């Protein structure tokens, strides 16, 4: 029996690897994505074009503006001289923000009076706008400190960034990509393995062989699992070597969790393909599940920001659990209790999906 299953597994893997296009699709695009996403996925702002509308004639406004020029968050955009120009600047996206310094700013500063400075921000991208506001507030506070170093500082807030001291976005995105890409590959390979046989008519042939349904499932599951783990490790290696991510956790534990997680992908793929008759329907089915599964998992935006119903739904999503484990393993030494708490839901999901898929195959025989 074991040799029968082994033969099936080898047949599946060789048929995947033998096709030049398929082989190429499994290797090159994931690497391209790692390189592009590691550079693109950045929530921080950098070199945001800032335009200045300065009505002050004194030296203090220049001193204040210098704070913005020195900040890597901002880059200079052309100056403006009227409200209409400021509006055009923001509308056309030539500038992302306009800083308006009023008349007599320097005089007020030197006399120790407050002066109202306006910052107009293009908030079409709300997250960027919020960060621009924060950076401007920091620069303003630093200027006030320079202006009046003797003023009592009643409060000092010490900030510590744990696990990611430089606030690198790619440290957040790459461990997520390990998880997302491996699921996409595992599911697509397994969804297509049954659907292709159905479409080509070899499915019936396989059913009349002495193989039992559970054996067929196993023969289909293992190759997809192998491909999924291969993809995950490809991205993992790229993250460690190309982008020098730290890895503070335990690698064997991570691999074990990835295997368990890939099993949910296999289960999903086989369950979908047992409902479908053609490859096209199978691919569609996979898309319908994969895209939302990645969106609501916390891959791009935190789960806790979502509405309650969506958070509940994400409890059924294996990606959610694996993301916690992957990010924790890279950046911190995730406590065992957290690993266990994330693993058992994945195990449960995998078992339910695999049992459902085997049941469907058995039904199609009788």
């Amino acid at each position, binding site marked *: 029996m074991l040799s029968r299953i082994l033969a099936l597994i080898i047949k599946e893997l060789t048929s995947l690897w033998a096709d030049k296009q398929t082989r190429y699709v499994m290797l090159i695009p994931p690497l391209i994505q790692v390189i592009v996403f590691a550079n*693109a996925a950045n929530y921080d702002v950098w070199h945001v074009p800032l335009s200045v509308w300065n009505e002050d004639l004194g030296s203090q406004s220049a001193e204040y503006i210098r704070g913005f020029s020195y900040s890597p968050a901002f880059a200079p955009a052309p100056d403006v001289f009227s409200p209409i120009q400021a509006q055009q600047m923001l509308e056309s996206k030539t500038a992302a923000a306009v800083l308006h310094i009023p008349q007599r700013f320097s005089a007020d500063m030197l006399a120790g009076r*407050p002066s109202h400075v306006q910052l107009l921000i293009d908030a079409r991208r709300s997250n960027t706008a919020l960060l621009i506001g924060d950076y401007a507030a920091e620069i303003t506070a630093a200027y006030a400190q320079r202006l009046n170093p003797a*003023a*009592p500082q009643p409060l*000092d807030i010490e900030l510590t960034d744990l696990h990611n001291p430089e606030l690198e976005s790619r440290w957040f995105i790459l461990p997520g990509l390990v998880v997302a890409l491996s699921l996409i590959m595992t599911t697509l390979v397994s969804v*297509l393995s049954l659907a292709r046989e159905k479409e080509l008519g070899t499915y019936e042939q396989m059913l009349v062989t002495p193989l039992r349904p559970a054996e067929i499932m196993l023969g289909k599951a293992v190759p997809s699992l192998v491909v999924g783990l291969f993809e995950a490790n490809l991205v993992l290696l790229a993250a460690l070597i190309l982008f020098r991510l730290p890895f503070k956790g335990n690698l064997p534990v991570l691999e074990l969790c990835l295997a368990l997680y890939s099993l949910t992908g296999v289960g999903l793929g086989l369950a979908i393909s047992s409902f479908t008759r053609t490859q096209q329907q199978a691919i569609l089915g996979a*898309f319908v599940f994969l895209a939302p599964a990645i969106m609501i998992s916390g891959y791009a935006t935190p789960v806790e920001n*979502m509405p309650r119903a969506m958070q509940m739904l994400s409890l059924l999503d294996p990606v959610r659990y694996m993301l916690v484990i992957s990010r924790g393993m890279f950046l911190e030494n995730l406590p065992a209790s*957290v690993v266990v708490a994330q693993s058992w839901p994945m195990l449960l999901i995998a078992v339910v999906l695999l049992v459902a898929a085997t049941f469907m195959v058995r039904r199609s025989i009788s």
Partner: protein
Amino acid sequence: MSPRLQRLHGLVRKEMLQILRDPSALLIAFLLPFIMLIVNGYGMTLDANRMKLAAVVEAGAAQTRAIEEALDASPYLSVYWAPSGQAARRALDTEEVRGILTLRQDFAERLERPARWPAVAQLAVNATDPNTARLLQGYVTGAFTVWLQDVATERRFSTGGGPVLETRYWYNPQLRSADFIVPGAIALVMSMTGTLLTALIVAREWERGTMEAMLASPAAMAELIGAKLGTYFVLGMGSMAMSVLITVFVFRVPLHGGLGALTLTAALFLVYALAQGLFISTITRNQFVAAQLSFITTMMPAIMLSGMLFDIASMPRWLQLLTYLFPARYFVAAMQTLFLAGNIWSVLIPNLCGLAISAVAAIAATLAVTHRRLD
């Protein structure tokens, strides 16, 4: 009717019948966009409300109570008053909270005598997710600033003159991230449905050999491609209309721009996406590879390189140049402007040009590979 028109009529009729017979085309055109928009609109939000923060106050006093009130009053924070540093640390490790705020024993005492040393508030955040970490720091600092101003007016010590920064958020004053993510998500949905629609369906025709049969018929290549593009164009515009309705009526994103400009933008992008799908299916002729390629060349760039979620201006230079190759960039910029700001032609015209050039290039490339493939 001229034979040419008759042929075209026949071809379109054939495509229509094919769509009606196999529901998967309708599924791609309507169900997929619906699911994607709902999930994106509700699921992808950068608005961090009620972020969980643990606070450890080592010595209670009148001043710290005022801070506690200020933190509790912040709509952005949900504070867990931890009994000890260890308890707070445990909550942070198990990801129950995003950060820990600590006020040491001498906090109140130091606050009384600001001239000697400032009182210290320590904020440690879990920066695994840097964006959320930065927002949390902003919210806590904001809550302290408000409190400090109250203290200053109450006890009449001056916080110095200095500039008072008034920040105005234009086009999206409530800073709802859905307002920019959902119009961007239309790009994601349209590039997926547009490309996947043709890529899968035509790859199957190649796989089964029906495409060769069609090419052997008297119909000219341009007619064949035109009939396919035309039919799926109508389907795609239908799914676009549905997406806009969902955006406006379900997610309540304001639509400041005109419907004419919106339709033009969508039509150009759709032609591009459909032609790209035809191109992919012609060069691969295999459904698995076609699905993978359309996923990688449409969905991923539409999320990462379009400006839907990440700011293009903050990317490295080489990557910024690369984004010009993905028309999702032009479409997202145009959509965000049309929805939130209106018909601002200085933004729309360059992006419409980008879309038009991409569409023409994609059609030309498809015609070229189809010719070559037959030799």
